[in-house]
């Protein structure tokens, strides 16, 4: 007929907005990995002996491991000897003391991303520890945090200035033997963020790090460690964008969270790495290990993530609920478009008594994308009275996308309660037509439907980040009453 049928596919074909490379000279180690490269990295960073030993142990263990292939993703073999394991902006000796000293091109990059560092930091009251490639180049609001006794700094700085904390906590949640990528990360990680909250301290601001992957053929091996001592409270935000690139880039980060008794850690991620072009070429491979342990009674760890990027995502932010009455939460929106593949989910390990966990996963698949939810709820015999609630919803856009759900349950305590709900729906030509018939444009209609679908997760994001998430999904929640 004469009227234009509205194609969902057209709407989801929008090009990645942040495709550009910042031209900054880098000090890059030649590709390849052996013990000498690890020694070089450790020496360049001036690390203490225990850390070098730890790296080498991880490397030797990694050599005995095989790349895992159980995830519902497909990609060509990765040549680990073809990756350069270290890259830092040059002239680190005279690193910038303030934003004024930062390479203007770098700041311009943030501007293009809509993340003007200084503006954002000041206006939003967010301290930004900007990780540019592998070395942090700007840290703000340090003094205000220092007043409160909060340590928020690049990981390498923490290694130099707080080696005792590093030695005590590093690898205690994600051991170097944990999995293939975690082992690799442990061997070669270059930098990342470190946070420590002393007893009873409520962090005076949201802590935020923007990651960027910028150097060709540079694997990114970030290491983040957050320790919340007894009764403390912190909200940490991680956001990522990356420039357009023709080669696949490996990213294998490790994030470890430790919440001691009565402490709360809220970790939010908005991830917008380059997903590859319409044909699935050139995107980021994101194999990340994120895990938190509620090590004391009444501790709480909450993961909230909005994933829109990466060619391949392999990611399971997890909670180990060791302390009695501790709480683990996982709220996730994963969007996969074109030929993106996402295999993501969570693990909730109930060890302490009366531990509780909540999982809300929203998967959106469009184009030829495959989106899988993989979740494990494990209740150990010690976890009397444990409770879990899982809700897992999938939204399909167009005829060629796929959604898969792999829930695993292991309950070894009869007093535990485990609930699982799952739905799969199609964004339907029906829903879309309904909105069009009420006069909405197709773009507004899709945004509205998607944002409605994601609502329960967006509610969990800190305000500033919710805005970011909305932009990323091109979703407008504005004007929603009630």
């Amino acid at each position, binding site marked *: 007929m004469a009227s234009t*049928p509205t194609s969902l596919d057209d709407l989801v074909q929008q090009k990645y907005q942040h495709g550009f490379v910042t031209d900054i000279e880098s000090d890059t180690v030649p590709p390849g990995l052996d013990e000498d490269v690890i020694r070089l990295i450790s020496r360049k960073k001036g690390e203490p002996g225990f850390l070098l030993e730890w790296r080498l142990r991880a490397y030797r263990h990694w050599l005995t491991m095989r790349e895992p292939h159980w995830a519902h993703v497909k990609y060509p073999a990765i040549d680990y000897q073809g990756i350069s394991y270290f890259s830092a902006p040059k002239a680190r000796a005279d690193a910038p003391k303030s934003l004024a000293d930062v390479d203007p091109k770098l700041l311009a990059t943030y501007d293009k991303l809509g993340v003007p560092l200084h503006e954002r930091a000041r206006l939003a009251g967010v301290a930004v520890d900007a990780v540019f490639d592998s070395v942090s180049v700007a840290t703000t609001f340090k003094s205000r945090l220092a007043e409160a006794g909060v340590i928020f700094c690049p990981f390498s700085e923490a290694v130099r200035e707080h080696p005792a904390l590093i030695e005590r906590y590093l690898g205690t949640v994600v051991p170097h033997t944990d999995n293939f990528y975690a082992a690799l990360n442990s061997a070669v990680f270059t930098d990342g963020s470190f946070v420590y909250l002393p007893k009873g301290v409520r962090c005076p601001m949201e802590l935020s790090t923007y990651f960027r992957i910028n150097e060709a053929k540079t694997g990114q091996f970030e290491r983040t460690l957050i320790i919340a001592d007894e009764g403390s409270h912190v909200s940490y935000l991680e956001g990522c964008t990356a420039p357009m690139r023709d080669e696949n880039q490996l990213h294998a980060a490790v994030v470890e969270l430790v919440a001691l008794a009565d402490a709360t850690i809220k970790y939010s991620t908005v991830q917008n790495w380059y997903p590859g072009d319409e044909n699935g070429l050139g995107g980021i491979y994101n194999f990340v290990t994120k895990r938190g342990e509620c090590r004391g009674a009444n501790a709480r760890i909450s993961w909230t993530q909005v994933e829109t990027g990466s060619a391949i995502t392999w990611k399971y932010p997890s909670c180990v609920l060791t302390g009695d009455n501790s709480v683990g939460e996982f709220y996730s929106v994963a969007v996969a478009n074109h030929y993106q593949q996402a295999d993501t989910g969570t693990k909730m390990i109930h060890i302490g008594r009366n531990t509780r966990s909540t999982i809300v996963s929203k998967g959106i698949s469009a184009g030829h994308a495959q989106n899988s939810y993989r979740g494990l709820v494990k209740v150990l015999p010690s976890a009397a009275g444990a409770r879990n609630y899982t809700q897992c919803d999938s939204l399909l856009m167009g005829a060629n996308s796929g959604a898969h759900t792999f829930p695993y349950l292991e309950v070894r305590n009869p007093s535990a309660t485990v609930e699982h709900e799952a739905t799969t729906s199609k964004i339907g030509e029906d*829903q879309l037509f309904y909105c069009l018939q*009420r*006069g909405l444009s197709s773009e507004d209609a899709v945004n509205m439907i998607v944002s409605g679908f994601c609502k*329960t997760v967006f509610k969990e994001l800190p305000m500033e980040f919710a805005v970011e998430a909305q932009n990323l999904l091109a979703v407008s929640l504005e*004007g*929603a*009453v009630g």
Partner: protein
Amino acid sequence: MNSIQPGDVILEVRDLAADVQGKHILDGLDLTVRAGEVHAIMGPNGAGKSTLSQLLAGRPGYTVVRGSVRYLGEDLLALPPEERARRGLFLGFQYPVEIPGVNNVYLLKAALNARRRQLGLPEVDAFEFLTLVRERMKLMQMDEAFLSRGVNEGFSGGEKKRNEILQMTVLEPTLAILDETDSGLDIDALKVVAAGVNSLRRPDRAVVLVTHYQRLLDYIIPDQVHVLVGGRILKSGDRSLALELEKRGYDWVRSEASAA
């Protein structure tokens, strides 16, 4: 938009033939709807009633083989569905969809503003909007809690139909096409829905009721009744035709038409 006078032609369907997935559903349908009128289209299952409603609203998937449709003087078939809606063509859905997480009030406001933009009016003021919606909800005997619920989310069949009519009374369309809005309603709900439709009746608007049953027409008195069989309108008449159909079914219309 020029003001519409009573008796002006709002919708003019001429010799419309349309296929769905290669099947002929409409086959030479004629229909003229003028301002101020209420038309009822009745017919057996599979006669093409819903196809006609959906096609007029612009749902993708229908192929127009021949004929024309003019709406307020424009070529309706050349307009995308959202443009038809903004020009005041409203479809009350037979099966309204659920849109989880999207507030009813949000959709309603977006819809009203889309219409207002078309009319060259500013976005509706929040207070004015709520006053309007509350008043219409009273008419539809709906609870206010409904506003913050997801669009049709977990609604009963009757609630969904009420919601359609509520939207209609807020949007005040020039032409409302109600596709089996009465199906699945108990008698009380039917009366409420009828009250909503009757409140919309004005000399510059028109309503097309697509229905199986005569009983709706006890509460909404139509000016014309059409019998749609085999993709075309075989017979038209006044309200008494509906009563006759209820008594005698549709076969006599078929044989009468083939004899003619």
